[in-house]
């Protein structure tokens, strides 16, 4: 039981940035903009958050900076894919390299720690929050470990991530913005001819993407870890993308996919160095690769079928 709880706690911890990045991707892809640059945004905002938090000692300013960085990245992506009708995948790839190069380059120039930022402490970090009655309920069987051990004791960003899921579902299916968002990813002309601006709507979606993924990045450097280290996103943006495909661009399945991939990661930490009979040390590499293998199998139609929003990846050309 305790083992399980501890694996699940880790699952939630490592899933948080995945959920934020995955929902972020959902907004932009639903709007018809493929966002392969999630990885770069995650990395860039982790860096921005850590730098500002380290300099000011205020984690909230750090969070804002993280979001600011991903907003800039989203802006570039928007310029390339909305205004200049460029290839969205190429733009995303470029942004990933930009983050990977700039973070280390600037970090090394500013702090001289080989690209890492100074360790954060005190007000420069997000800390775990104890939910009401967590201590009182800790002793109660079953409920205690689940409520006090599993549900309570995460940072504010984790709770935001989990709340963002129903919120996204609500926005998507119940609001005017959601209706237009889904429409612009399926048939942007329908919006254009109904008198709405396709570009503006797509920029709005990209902005939401930036806010969410910016929180995810800030989480990496100011909550999960206590500083920025080079390449600290280590493929999470791609995993989030995989989760998004896995979830067929829907919010609740996205949560499920992120938790599944998070669980695999947690399991992998847990089994590191553990020796099993017959095969010897657990090949953790196999578990690292599993989310990618699963996504490929899904994409290949061996596990269901993933159909992306129809207009995704195509720049909208207004002239006819």
């Amino acid at each position, binding site marked *: 039981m305790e083992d399980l709880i501890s694996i699940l706690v880790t699952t939630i911890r490592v899933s948080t940035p995945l959920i934020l990045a995955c929902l972020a991707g959902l907004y932009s892809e639903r709007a018809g903009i493929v966002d*392969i640059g999630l990885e770069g945004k995650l990395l860039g905002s982790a860096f921005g958050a850590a730098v500002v938090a380290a300099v000011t000692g205020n984690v909230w300013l750090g969070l804002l900076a993280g979001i600011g960085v991903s907003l800039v990245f989203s802006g*570039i992506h928007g*310029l*390339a*894919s909305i205004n*200049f*009708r*460029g*290839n*969205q*995948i*190429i*733009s995303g*790839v*470029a*942004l*990933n*390299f*930009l983050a*990977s*190069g*700039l*973070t*280390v*380059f*600037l970090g*090394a*120039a*500013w702090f001289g720690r080989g*690209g890492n930022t100074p360790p954060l402490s005190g007000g420069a970090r997000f800390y775990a929050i104890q939910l009401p009655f967590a201590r009182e309920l800790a002793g109660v069987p079953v409920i205690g470990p689940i409520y006090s051990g599993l549900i309570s004791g995460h940072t504010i960003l984790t709770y935001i991530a989990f709340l963002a899921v129903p919120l996204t579902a609500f926005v998507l299916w119940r609001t005017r913005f959601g209706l237009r968002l889904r429409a612009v990813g399926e048939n942007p002309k329908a919006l254009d001819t109904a008198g709405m601006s396709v570009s503006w709507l797509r920029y709005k979606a990209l902005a939401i993407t930036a806010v969410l993924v910016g929180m995810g990045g800030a989480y990496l450097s100011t909550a999960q870890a206590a500083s920025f280290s080079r390449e600290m996103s280590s*493929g999470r943006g*791609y995993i989030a*993308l*995989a989760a998004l*495909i896995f979830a067929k661009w829907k919010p609740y399945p996205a949560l499920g996919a992120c938790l599944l991939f998070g669980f695999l990661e947690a399991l992998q930490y847990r089994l590191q160095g553990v020796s099993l009979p017959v095969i010897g040390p657990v*090949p953790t*590499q*196999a578990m*690292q*690769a599993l989310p*990618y*293998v699963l*996504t*490929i199998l899904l*994409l*290949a*139609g*061996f596990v269901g079928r993933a159909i992306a929003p129809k207009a995704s990846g195509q720049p909208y*050309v207004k*002239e*006819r």
Partner: protein
Amino acid sequence: MSSAMPLPRWVDVALLPVLNVTLAFLIGGVVVMIVGENPIEAVRIMLYGAFGYGYGFGFTLYYTTNFIFAGLAVAVAYHGGLFNIGGEGQAYVGGLGAILVALAVGGLHWAFALPLIMISAALFAGVWAFIPGYLQAKRGSHVVITTIMMNFIATSMMSYIISRILKPANVNSDESARIDPLTRVPFLSEWVPLLKNTPVNISFFIALLALVGVYWLIWHTKFGYALRTMGHNGTAAHYAGMSNARLIMITMAISGALAGMVAINDTAGAHGRLLLGYVAGTGFVGIAVAFMGKAHPIGVGLSALLFGVLYQGGQELAFTMPAITREMIVTIQALVILFTGAMSNMLRRPVELAFMAAQSGAERSGSPAEEKRA
């Protein structure tokens, strides 16, 4: 549609790419200024580091070799309308093909071993690229996503293979056994003393041959014609009786095989063994090289050289100006991809307008554009 009046060819193939690359470097210069260094001085140091003396020049050529292979891999796929982001993983797996044969034929003279190593590396990397190609062709999974996934899978798989299987008992770091010196691809320094202590090897000439070969393949073979047809218009290819599925799979395999040639230069040559994570971003540089070179072998050759200069000059720069680490190069690489790839229309419009302004009045009669607009 956007260009009622077509731009002259030289603008398209030369002026715009040069402008875009210039822009990327200007922004790079600004970033250098942000960290308080002089960009012009930085360029001088880089150029000296890359060309100024034999040692630097050798390294420049060594990097160029890698980037030619990686760039050609992306370029070939691009002509078929496929975006192969998986060069990194394909080159990595190609390293496995190279090392297995190189160790198996250990002691064989390199002149005999090299073709075998090449075939094996091409085969391994080709198969790694063929998988996404197959999935795209037969199952409709987008090659961009699957090649990204395959990169990660390659990383995990190779890390397992190298650390658990290939690593000799007496070695501490994660790497394979060393290739017999007789079998290892020889360094050019054996013949050219100027290149002493540099890893540039015979593979450099193979890369040059690959440039010529790809040019011939794309523009002077029936396969190349079919490939370009598919790249521009898959429906037309189907109409013409070309099998898109087969073309995709073959193209991806060729693309992967080219990426696998990085292993000849590195694993079988410069390193003389298979190192953990040996590709170290070369496959990704290939994306920048291909875009900057407009997927044309001449362009790929030139931009591979430019990136060779950046990489080698960048090392030199990191010595002289410690504030400028080698990640500056990754930044430049990103900007090059951004401007030549994703934002190529940004400068195109103004250039088009400039040309239209220059030509307006010359032609006033009805143009074919009218029909297309209707």
